[in-house]
């Protein structure tokens, strides 16, 4: 008993990347996230599942303070990244977002060349001293985004001209280029066909070696395929959070069981 507790605290010190404590989110009068506590581990893929409108995307957007750009949104509680509260007034949300990258539901490449899309982050953060370094960063990011082979001969072509799956991998490469520590993905495959989805899922699995990945998904099969930990949200509450295998085989909460067997949601 004592031993396990000790083991858990050891885990929290080494491997917990993000920990949320009593997080509440309001959109105007609407209480969208109710008292969420969760610890997200480093070098792990964590999936957020739940029916539409359950608050999983909202919570995801709290982790890099993207909700700041919505006027009516209000966040309470603490979210710690490496033990530091990201809602501390001293924290600059702009710098935070460089550390916590995000990939969106719909591929959103800028109407620029493929190269400029990836170089966008490194340029605004001054990560490269010269053109050669920037080239190197872009190439590395595109390789990590598993799209280098497809685009290496047409880096000056517009990013919007790629196919949907390529666009999404380009957006992942773009997010990776700023060397984030955490990668947030908001339903990254919902606009993609099965083949592109498989490519992106494979990529997510590779990204786990370097980053802590948090993915919101509507597909329970996808959650089961790519994630090690799964959190089930329902009506703004975090209902259950555990190893993915356990959630899908022996859920503790009846609501989780109903959802994964298709009775609610």
């Amino acid at each position, binding site marked *: 008993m004592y031993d396990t507790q000790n083991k858990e605290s050891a885990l929290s010190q080494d491997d917990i990347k993000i920990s949320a404590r009593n997080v509440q989110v309001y959109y105007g009068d609407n209480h969208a996230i109710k008292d969420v506590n969760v610890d997200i581990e480093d070098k792990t893929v964590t999936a957020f599942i739940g029916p539409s409108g359950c608050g999983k995307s909202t919570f995801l957007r709290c982790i890099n303070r993207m909700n700041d750009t919505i006027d009516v949104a209000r966040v309470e509680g603490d979210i710690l990244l490496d033990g530091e509260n990201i809602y501390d007034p001293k924290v600059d949300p702009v710098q935070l977002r460089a550390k916590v990258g995000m990939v969106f539901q719909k591929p959103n490449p800028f109407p620029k060349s493929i190269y400029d899309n990836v170089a*966008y982050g490194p340029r605004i953060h001054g990560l490269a001293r010269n053109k050669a370094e920037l080239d190197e960063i872009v190439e590395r990011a595109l390789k990590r985004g598993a799209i280098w082979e497809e685009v290496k001969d047409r880096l000056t072509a517009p990013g919007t001209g790629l196919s949907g799956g390529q666009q999404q991998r380009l957006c992942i490469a773009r997010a990776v280029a700023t060397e984030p520590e955490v990668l947030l993905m908001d339903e990254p495959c919902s606009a993609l066909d099965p083949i592109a989805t498989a490519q992106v899922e494979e990529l997510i699995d590779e990204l786990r070696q370097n980053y802590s990945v948090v993915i919101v998904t509507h597909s329970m099969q996808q959650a089961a395929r790519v994630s090690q930990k799964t959190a089930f949200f329902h009506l703004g509450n975090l209902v259950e959070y555990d190893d993915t295998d356990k959630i899908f085989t022996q859920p503790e909460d009846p609501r989780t069981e109903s959802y994964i067997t298709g009775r609610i949601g």
Partner: protein
Amino acid sequence: MPLVWIIAIILAIAAIGFLLGRRRVLQAVQGDRRKLHSLPNYYGSNVLISALVPALLLLIIWLTLQPIYVNSLVSSGLSVSDLEQAASPDLVMAEIRRTADGLELAVASGTMTEDLARDPGADITEVAEGLQEAGSIVTSAVTQPILRAAQQYRAIMGTGYTMMFWAVVLMALGGAFWGLRNARPDYRARHTVEQAIRALLVAAASIAILTTLGIILSLIFNTIEFFRLYPATEFFFGTNWAPSFSGRGGASDLGVLPLLWGTFYISIVALTVAIPIGLFAAIYLSEYASPRVRAMAKPALEVLAGIPTIVYGLFALLTVGPLLMKVFGPDALGIMQAGTAVMTAGLVMGIMLIPFVSSLSDDIINAVPQAMRDGSYGLGATKSETIRKVILPAALPGVVGAILLAASRAIGETMIVVLGAGAAARLSLNPFDAMTTVTAKIVSQLTGDADFASPEALVAFALGMTLFVITLGLNIIALTIVRKYREQYD
């Protein structure tokens, strides 16, 4: 029978036809409207349309053709000697028409009896007295033959109008009966009404297009006429604008270059003012302003677009000009001679153009998908970085379109130039010199007392044509760019 009455009678026939048609078809099915092909009102409307449309068309055609026919009839009745006294047959006919109108007026106001007005042997002085009493102008040109012709004209016109009245009313009645005959339950009245609505809309659209064509044609013909009198090369490449008015005689220099230069110089000054201010205002409104500020500021900015340009002209003349004189005038820097200058007009025109640039750019910036902003913020970009590096490049084609539309407004602007820039056509680089533009010169060429067939007046059409081609080109470029931009996100 006045025209209003004829129209009122047709309308009454049509309205009664509507009610009858409705009733007839309802009676035919014993009030069970489910057995009708269309709703009862459609049968009514069908009768209304068949009564109204042919009658009105006939009325319009009759009104156009009758004066032409009567004119030729009366003028063929005039002897050669009658015509020889006057300068031209057109003038004689105008005199006859005026006298006929005068007789009509005199009879209507009771200063002349109908018998006198019709009497071919009536004494000319007696008739003239009656005409004067009724308030119409009698010139010395009213001679016995003219009076007789006028009486004849009046008589034929009167008969023509009576015939027209009966023809139109019969047409309306006939149409109504035709429509009523069709008011059967299985008649597809809805489709006929649908076609009539379509025809109405097509007519409205064609009137707009035909008018544009008419304007262009009148410009082209007059321009060709001008180039017959004045060499085109001297017009397009002449560097001197010095029209001589007919009174003084002598040849005019009608080179367009000083005017084009003035137009472009003033437009450039105006755009230099309007583009940055308008664009920055648009960025503030669409990206930074809270919804409440935006809801108030945007209409307030657009009020600028509603101010009549003559008011801007006054502002230029009375406020901006003197203000600039204080800084650049002879008492200060000494590079400005008078309050009217390119700078004065340009600055004020720039203010006028701000809402054009800002309102359009604001819409275009708003049309950039939120996903672009999210993507940029998600990578750790600040607000201004996002605007500079993502939003403006994405919105650029649309913004360029907005600017080109503003430019064609600037080129076509007249009142501000007339009041703010002076009237001197001059090729100069000093923005504090008075200059003038194509539009301002069109006004002054046509409002002078030059003979309308002289090159000095006809040059206005050539100027108008030049301007039209330039602004048309700018508009086409602008629309092409805007359309291309739209394809990107739709």
